[in-house]
């Protein structure tokens, strides 16, 4: 015969009653969403922004993406040589950079893997659409998200690493 756990039962009642009183006096932890906007933390993973100038169409993000939701098309072109008489330089131009957010699982591997600091997280979250096809964000839309990218936060005191800056 186990002993009757009476104190625990009463403690439980206390917890719910305390929450009741706190919600009535100090308000709830939830937010009435369409009327009041929730403010996510600055590092929240809302949507991915693209800084187009940094992208070299290297395809690393597209290949690492577990969902294959990044579509990149590019072409090479000959840029004029830096010095007169030199060889024309080969450059990559970005034709298409789409992220399909209906497939994306917000793992952030593309952001981590990008060697040229072209992809950034932004905490923006209000981009739902009525049609699922509209969730395919093209490079103009992805570039527009750049405005909402917050600055990187300071590292811990004593860190040697250089703090990255968000290109604007």
């Amino acid at each position, binding site marked *: 015969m186990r002993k009757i756990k009476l104190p625990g*039962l009463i403690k*439980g*009642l206390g*917890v*719910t*009653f305390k*929450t*009741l009183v*706190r*919600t*009535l006096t100090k308000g*709830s*932890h*939830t937010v*009435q969403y369409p009327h009041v906007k929730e403010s996510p933390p600055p590092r929240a993973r809302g949507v991915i922004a693209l800084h187009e100038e940094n992208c070299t169409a290297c395809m690393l993000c597209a290949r690492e993406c577990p969902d294959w939701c990044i579509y990149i098309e590019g072409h090479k072109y000959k840029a004029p040589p830096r010095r007169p008489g030199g060889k024309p330089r080969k450059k990559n131009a970005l034709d298409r950079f789409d992220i399909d957010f209906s497939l994306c699982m917000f793992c952030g591997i593309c952001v981590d893997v990008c060697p040229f600091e072209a992809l950034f997280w932004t905490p923006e979250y209000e981009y739902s659409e009525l049609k699922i096809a509209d969730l395919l964000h093209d490079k103009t839309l992805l570039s527009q998200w750049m405005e909402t990218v917050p600055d990187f936060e300071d590292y811990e005191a004593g860190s040697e690493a250089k703090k990255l800056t968000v290109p604007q």
Partner: protein
Amino acid sequence: MSVVLADLAYWQETTIRLVVGLIAVLLPAGTLVYLFLFKMMSFMQSRLGPMEAGPYGSLQLLAEVGKFLQKEDIVPQAADRLIFKLAPFVVLISTFLLILVIPAGPDLWFIDVDTGIFLGLAVSSISVIGILMAGWASSSKYSLLGALRATGQLIAYELPMVLAVVGVIIQAGTLNVQEIVMAQATGEIFGFGGIGNPYVITQFVGFLIFLIAVQAELTQPPFDMPVAESELVTGYLTEYSGLRFLMFFIGEFATAAIFSALAATLFLGGWYVPGLEATDNLFNVIGPIILLGKMLLVAFFIFWFRFTYPRFREDQLQQLAWKVLIPLSLVNIVITGVLKVVF
């Protein structure tokens, strides 16, 4: 009500009784759902609950009813159609019959019989038949298991509930609910008659047993094994949809309201408040409001337990009834009887 209705024709009297009966069942049930299920439960989980329909979501209930009425009334192909369709009415009828025995004022009652409380507890058991009908006729294993659990549970907890009431009956010396209220209004506690004698003081153990048994009778958490959604979908409600599901839903909360009112009547003094003569005509006006207030107080505790405790296991559930509550209530009856004879 008997005084008011004395001069009316039979059909007029019946109509008024029906309308008042409907209001007496649906109004407290709606109040409980809004006040406790929607609001108090939300507050206890640190959220606001429905806020959009009407001020503070007060019209949410109507929206829910509208939603249920729109839904298709599905009957499973293998179901026993007649029994399946009748079952919610049987449950609801038990609820409507239960309201009959509760007086709301010195002259406000539906029926005033000498075996009132016996009648009330008897008709409250009819709902078991409805639940068993629902579970069997659904031709679904989940429904059948849920209904069998519900039947076992309701029968097990019927006993401590009745035995807890027996203590009150011994003390009041009558089965008539109106006279039990009067006995509480005019009674004295060891010679002190200032606040009457609400039996919650002298029958505190009985009150506790009654509350626990009511909780189980309503199949509310922590005693909601019959509708355990993680294992039985929703038990005997699994195959029901639309209007018939709504009827079960109303039945559940109307029964919660009426059992709370019954507990308020038996243990908290019913429509009486100390300070006035029990036969004062004023009680015919404020009696229902006082009863509603006391009912809400009891219901607050019932729903507080509901929102706090996790579900029991089936064997723990039966153990609590047969090994703890029934012996305890029997001891309570013996002690009450001895004290009744001594004093």
